[in-house]
């Protein structure tokens, strides 16, 4: 399969057919939690240098099983690979999560809109992630930390089910040790070995220090968590055109043609998954939209 010239930074990898997956090799697989793994996927030789915008996703393909939309959760500049964090939930994600190093995983993408990190230049940045929502926001942190002085205060809140469900655990400890970033974690319940916070992510916001008038917020997690967090940020003075959410819907094609991912007028695969809160808040308020 011959590649075209280097693809634009957010366009899909060249492939003979819009639906055809490109065979990537699983270079490394690391278990994050009991049911979640991170996969490092290396392109076949000849594919132009990979690039993506934080927030975009690929359709990952398990031969004989099917495809699933999975956010890109890692940088490619150094590793020349896509990193995806997959939770084993249905038969496709399970097949992906149990692939062994050396095996081939199909990749189609990147697709979708990314986090507008450039809008946060010179601003305070608030990142709130719930559950596996930490995966699509991790690339924002890499981007920001790679140019740290270009941004103001950086506040991260990450909520998970229990301490055992915290993903990127070692990396989080390193981030928490930094003085140029504040990384709060909280869980829904914990046992006796947890000395951290217990409670929903919004309970951590009063402890986050940011200037609401000069803040951009990136939210990713269950929809109700994002809605309540956006409301809490707004109550604190952050304008709704500076708050961004990453939505999720059933996806089959990622091309804007199968119709499954529609959310009001938007195709989440093509007009999203990252949306400006101001533009979608009216649709978030509609039941079963």
């Amino acid at each position, binding site marked *: 399969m011959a590649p075209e010239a280097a693809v634009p930074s957010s366009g899909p990898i060249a492939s003979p057919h819009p639906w055809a997956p490109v065979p990537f090799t699983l270079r490394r697989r690391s278990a994050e939690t009991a*049911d979640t793994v991170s996969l490092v996927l290396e392109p076949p030789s000849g594919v132009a240098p990979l690039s993506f915008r934080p927030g975009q996703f690929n359709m990952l393909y398990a031969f004989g099983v099917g495809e699933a939309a999975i956010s890109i959760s890692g940088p490619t500049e150094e590793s020349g690979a896509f990193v995806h964090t997959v*939770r084993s*939930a249905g038969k496709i994600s399970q097949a992906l999560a149990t692939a062994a190093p050396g095996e081939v995983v199909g990749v189609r993408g990147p697709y979708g809109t990314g986090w507008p990190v450039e809008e946060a230049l010179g601003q305070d940045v608030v990142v709130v992630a*719930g*559950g*596996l929502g930490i995966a699509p926001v991790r690339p924002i942190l890499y981007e920001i930390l790679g140019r740290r002085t270009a941004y103001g205060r950086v506040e991260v809140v990450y*909520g*998970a*089910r229990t301490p055992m*469900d915290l993903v990127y655990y070692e990396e989080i400890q390193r981030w928490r040790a930094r003085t140029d970033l504040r990384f709060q974690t*909280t869980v*829904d*319940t*914990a*046992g*006796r070995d*947890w*000395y*951290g*916070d*217990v*409670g*929903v992510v*919004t*309970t951590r916001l*009063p*402890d986050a220090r940011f200037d609401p008038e000069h803040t951009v917020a990136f939210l990713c*997690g*269950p929809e*109700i*968590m994002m809605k*309540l967090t956006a409301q809490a940020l707004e109550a604190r003075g952050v304008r709704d055109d500076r708050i961004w959410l990453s939505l999720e819907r059933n996806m089959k094609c990622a091309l804007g043609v199968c119709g499954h991912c529609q959310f009001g007028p938007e195709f989440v695969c093509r007009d999203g998954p990252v949306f400006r809160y101001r533009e979608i808040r009216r649709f978030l308020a509609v039941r079963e939209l």
Partner: protein
Amino acid sequence: MSTRDPTVPALRLADHKFFHGMSGELLAVLGEHAHPRRFETGQLLVREGDPADEFLVLFEGKVALEILSPDRPRTTIQTLGPGEVLGWSWLFAPHRWRLDARALKPTRALGIGAAHLRATLEARPADGYRFLMRLLPVIAQRLENTRLQLMDLHGP
């Protein structure tokens, strides 16, 4: 009763978020029965079933609300920190704590004697109403948060 270290600033109700804007006169009356408390890491502030004889107002540290049941490990369902208040079991019968609260790090609080507090609020109905209208939103938010935790949003 703890011995107060004179080099550490005294805790004042007026400095606490819950009491912001309350009349100085009321704060003075409440303050008469407010005693400084200090809890070391691992120490229980309150124990389930014990008489709930204080309204605990947290100034520093971190407190875990825990449920203990014989058939499962000890579970923390909420942590609280500076600017928050501990509970409301002191307000109505049977005036017994319904959870354990444990300090996860050195914690300083003011404990307002519950009997005195109830008598004060009863004797001053307008202040009593205002006090409850501060406490109710705390309880409501706690309940709403608990519902979200119950939904197990990050579950499989």
